């Protein structure tokens, strides 16, 4: 390697290392995401979740607990875990199951195809 090419290599190296560091530092905080505690209540008004799609995060092995209060009659489908429960207009339904599958899953009001929850299960 002559000095020119050496400089080029060093240049590439510095750029890439800088980019890697930048991304690592930027994401550093989000790595240890806090898990959800207690029972979360998702309120459905006019067939839509109040405050947008609920976000729940658990580690594998923990117990997932949430409740859906709905003003419409529909079926709540927890995808991936494939749990379906009917809810009546003005009624509520509770979910309580162990987080056994890792990944990101959605729960929908099945009839309306309306997503109400994003469930994240970390290893």
């Amino acid at each position, binding site marked *: *390697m002559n000095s020119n*090419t050496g400089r*080029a*290599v060093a240049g*590439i*190296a510095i750029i*890439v*290392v800088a*980019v*890697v560091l930048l*991304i*690592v530092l930027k*994401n*550093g905080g*989000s*790595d240890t995401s806090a898990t959800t505690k207690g029972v979360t209540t998702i309120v459905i008004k006019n067939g839509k979740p109040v405050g*947008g*799609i609920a976000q729940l995060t658990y580690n594998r092995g923990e117990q997932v607990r949430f409740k859906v209060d709905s003003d419409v009659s529909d079926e709540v489908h927890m*995808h*991936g875990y*494939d749990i379906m429960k009917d809810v009546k207009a003005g009624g509520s339904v509770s979910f309580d199951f162990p987080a*056994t*599958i*890792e*990944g*990101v*899953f*959605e729960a*929908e009001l099945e009839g*309306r*195809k*309306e*997503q109400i929850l994003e469930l*994240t299960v*970390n*290893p």
Partner: protein
Amino acid sequence: MSFFLPVAHALVARKDLPVPVWLFAWGASIVLIVSFFALSVSWRAPRFEEDRWRPLGAGLSRALLGLPAQIVCGLVGVLLLGLAIYAGLRGTEAPDRNFALTFLYVTTWLGFPLFSVFLGDVFRPFNPWRSVGRVVGAGFTALAGQRPAHLRYPEALGRWPAALGLIAVVWLEVIYGASGGVAVGLAPHAAAVAALLYSGYTLAMMALFGAEQWCRTGEVFSVYFGMFGRLGCFGVEDGRLGVRRPFAAAAKWATVPGSAAVVIASIATTSFDGAQEGAFKGALESTFNHLTDAGFGLTSALRLTDTLFILLCFAGVGLVYLTGVWGMASVPGAPSFKKLRAGFAHSLIPIALAYLIAHYFSLFVFQEQAQFTYLLSDPLGTGTTDLFGTASSGIDFQLLNANAIWYVQVGALVIGHVIGLTLAHDRATAYWGDYRQAARSQYWMLAVMVAFTCFGLYLLSVANA
């Protein structure tokens, strides 16, 4: 007012977790170390310019390539396409319960690239349009007593129709399908209509230019799957099945104009799909809000936003590649820009494959369980059919844990990077007689590869976060 962007997919009940920071850092570090090692290797003579093809046994060739096998494979291809279209038109509108969507977009679109790498161009015998085209051609010859006359295919057009078609196929699923305003994907009915339209278009083009010619340059699936088939060691020459040096056939792939566009389209469309729920989320949302403020309806604003970004991805990936080519052209002794542009396109094929595996590996493993259980037993999703007794089976999401998926994703990108570098370096030694100049030209391709691989890792690290 700001709207929630519905970018959920039709088929996936589960999305991958983002690759953790420590694995991202390891992946990127390994890529760097490997790349610097590659620079220091003194590779003086090209090794992949000759494919060293040698035939396998004549009996094996007859069994696998003979007329009976051609008829059986062609029939299977036509029947499966017919089943998919029928299921799409007559079956349930739930994308995840209908045979059509999983068969077309997972089993075929993701399955053939993977299998082609190991087995060669396996799509060719099963290609339903080629089979129909050949039968029609043979019928014409028998009736008219002469072979059908075809137009001359414009050489400059090359593989451009396939590149644009590839973008259209992905557009239909991830943009048109995912933007109906609710969290459902492409309707099976729409997929079936698209398949019918594509069949009509393909058969018309085959009638104009000839079935084999159109499969070489224009037919999206033939060109796309065939590209991955060039990486492996099995191939057919003069009607004989044979083995060759792995990767060597890829070195000859990009001699047709527009080939670089095909592989760039592949990387770009996968990037867009990977980025839409991670890296691009903010940008997509703000563009979408601008468009709705400007008076566009929700669905058209969403489609316009996504279409804009998938085209930007194509331009961006193309620009990175062309920058590398431009850099190489500045090295003394370089061939023309045009020759370089075509000459290094094949080195991106392993990167395209790595992107596919990184983004769709888990989807493929999970959705294929559905394909071979309930979608096969109940293709229309009526809930009343159970052909093979597997209609009530489900997908076992415990088959792969998050760690296994992460290692496959990062491993695919790192391996794709190494193979891409190797192919580029090999081509450089063929183009530059002086190995020092060849190595110098490769700083540019190295930068291109590092950019693609690190971008791929970055997309994984912020996906669905």
